[in-house]
């Protein structure tokens, strides 16, 4: 094989892997959008909040310690030295469920049957409030998140591919981050579980029913409020997974909440209502970005195409296929 071909394969692989990371964020959006017709602007902050909480639990930080210390002159900072990450993840999941419940109580309950734009504005507000609370609770310093997922380049792949290039050429093997491989595995499990759940369980069916018609769902005795708490908790869980992955890669910092913006083009490509769409959309964006960076960028000798190429793709899609690749076609009969 020629070096060019190998490089191409490596780029595509890396694109696919980073695309999965986008998909993880997009998934949370799709879930909430399907069940309540709300575009949850706070999804990125959800991921940040979950990651912060996870680190907090893991290292035994006292929540609101800065505030408490400031008010009462105490010197609190840690409960306990450190706990196992698995335990910390369980606690974080519980926190996300409680958060979902609180959001339903304080926000959603009062906005039943309101215009989507009003709900959207509410989630923007929620994003800022939650970001503030996260800051207050755990402090604003950049944190290292390590739940035991290996990261760094895969030596195995490097060694396996180094011999593929033609004799005598300068080729050092492919580089793939192991973290991304893990993200892929987790995303596949997550999506399979979600698909099975929504297809074959009673609650899953109720979720889809609510997505179709709120009033009719109410009329057959499906409690909207229970479903909403459920969905928000579930997307809180997905946000946590995304938060873990992104946090492990680049540290838990407040810019993490901006990954929501990366998910937007994914959603436009894949369609707001489709779980497979979120995955495929993420992959396309990931691959598109990387290829554009290397080949288009290389051609015209410009850099950082990666940063805006996703939005460009989204724009093209909006022009020609506004419902996205897998978005639900609107069924209308008279």
């Amino acid at each position, binding site marked *: 094989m020629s070096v060019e071909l190998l490089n191409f394969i490596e780029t595509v692989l890396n694109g696919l892997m980073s695309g999965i990371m986008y998909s993880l964020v997009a998934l949370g959006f799709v879930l909430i959008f399907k069940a309540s017709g709300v575009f949850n602007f706070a999804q990125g902050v959800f991921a940040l909040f979950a990651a912060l909480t996870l680190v907090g639990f893991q290292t035994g930080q006292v929540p609101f310690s800065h505030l408490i210390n400031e008010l009462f002159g105490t010197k609190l900072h840690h409960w306990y030295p450190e706990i196992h990450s698995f335990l910390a993840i369980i606690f974080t999941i519980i926190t996300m469920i409680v958060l979902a419940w609180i959001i339903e109580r304080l926000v959603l309950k009062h906005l*039943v*049957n309101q215009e989507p734009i009003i709900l959207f504005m509410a989630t923007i507000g929620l994003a800022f409030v939650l970001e503030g609370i996260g800051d207050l609770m755990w402090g604003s310093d950049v944190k290292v998140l390590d739940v035991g997922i290996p990261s760094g380049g895969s030596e195995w792949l490097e060694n396996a591919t180094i011999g593929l290039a033609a004799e005598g050429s300068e080729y050092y093997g492919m580089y793939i981050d192991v973290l991304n491989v893990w993200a892929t595995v987790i995303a596949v499990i997550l999506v399979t579980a979600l698909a099975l759940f929504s297809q074959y369980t*009673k609650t899953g*069916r*109720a979720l*889809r*029913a609510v*997505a*179709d*018609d*709120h*009033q*009719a*769902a*109410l*009329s*057959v*005795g*499906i*409690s*909207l409020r229970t479903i909403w708490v459920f969905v928000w908790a579930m997307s809180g869980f997905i946000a946590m997974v995304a938060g873990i992955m992104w946090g492990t890669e680049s540290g838990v910092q407040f810019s993490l909440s901006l990954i929501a913006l990366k998910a937007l083009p994914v959603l436009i490509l894949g369609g707001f209502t489709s779980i497979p769409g979120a995955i495929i959309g993420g992959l396309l964006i990931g691959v598109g970005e990387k290829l554009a960076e290397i080949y288009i960028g290389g051609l015209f000798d410009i850099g950082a195409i990666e940063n805006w190429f996703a939005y460009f793709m989204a724009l093209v899609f909006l022009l020609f296929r506004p419902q996205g690749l897998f978005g*639900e076609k609107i*069924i209308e*009969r008279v």
Partner: protein
Amino acid sequence: MDDISIKNNKKHSKNKKNTDLLIVNNIEVVYNHVILVLKGVSLNVRKGGITTLLGGNGAGKTTTLKSISNLLASERGEVTKGSISFENIDVHALDPSQLVKLGVIQVMEGRHCFEHLTVEENLLTGAYTRKNNKEVKYDLERVYNYFPRLKDRRTSQAGYTSGGEQQMVAIGRALMANPRMILLDEPSMGLAPQLVKQIFEIVSQINKQEGVTILLAEQNTNMALQYAEYAYILENGRVVMEGSAKSMRDNEDVKEFYLGISGKGRQSYRDFKQYRRRKRWL
């Protein structure tokens, strides 16, 4: 107007109290805190029978049904006066899912199927509040017996079925909750006369065989009066007339205003308008 009591609900309710499943007593409904829609509606629904609510557009039929099933809250409406009781339980404060568990379910106007779910999934959502899977399975077969056509289309997306089939899905879905009372809102809407007849036949069968009490809101007065045993006529948010279906069918005013038949042969429209004005109930 011998056997028809106008605005005389009290007397009627005294006579029938023991057999009434649902009693709506003088309710007033306000939307958005300002729009008064029902101005004191009272009804009694006899257990095991078909009672119908008649009236034109905007008379308050749907609102009455929704205030019983408590779907008003999600439309920013509320019952501000009066009481609603189902089997002597005050259902005013219950939310729809509690009502469904109690046995009251509404089939909404305009069918409201879950479009992206298959026909069978639609039916199964009706059993959401039930726990016993065996019974649910049995009931699914029972629904397919009433609507054989749904069995053929069980795997197709409900959004792509015909209007008649969707109405069947909506009624079947309500049956899956194993209800004691169905609030049926305009099942004839947008359907061909042949289908309307078919749907009404099945509803009446369900009523007889399953003993499900039915409160039917209809604009198709002729059909409703053929199948119901008791009828109320609503106008402008008030009950203006009530009586047995038979007496309603024979009543000159009902014939003239709702059935479009008059004993006096062809009349000039001018006379008719005069007559109508004279006979206003309100």
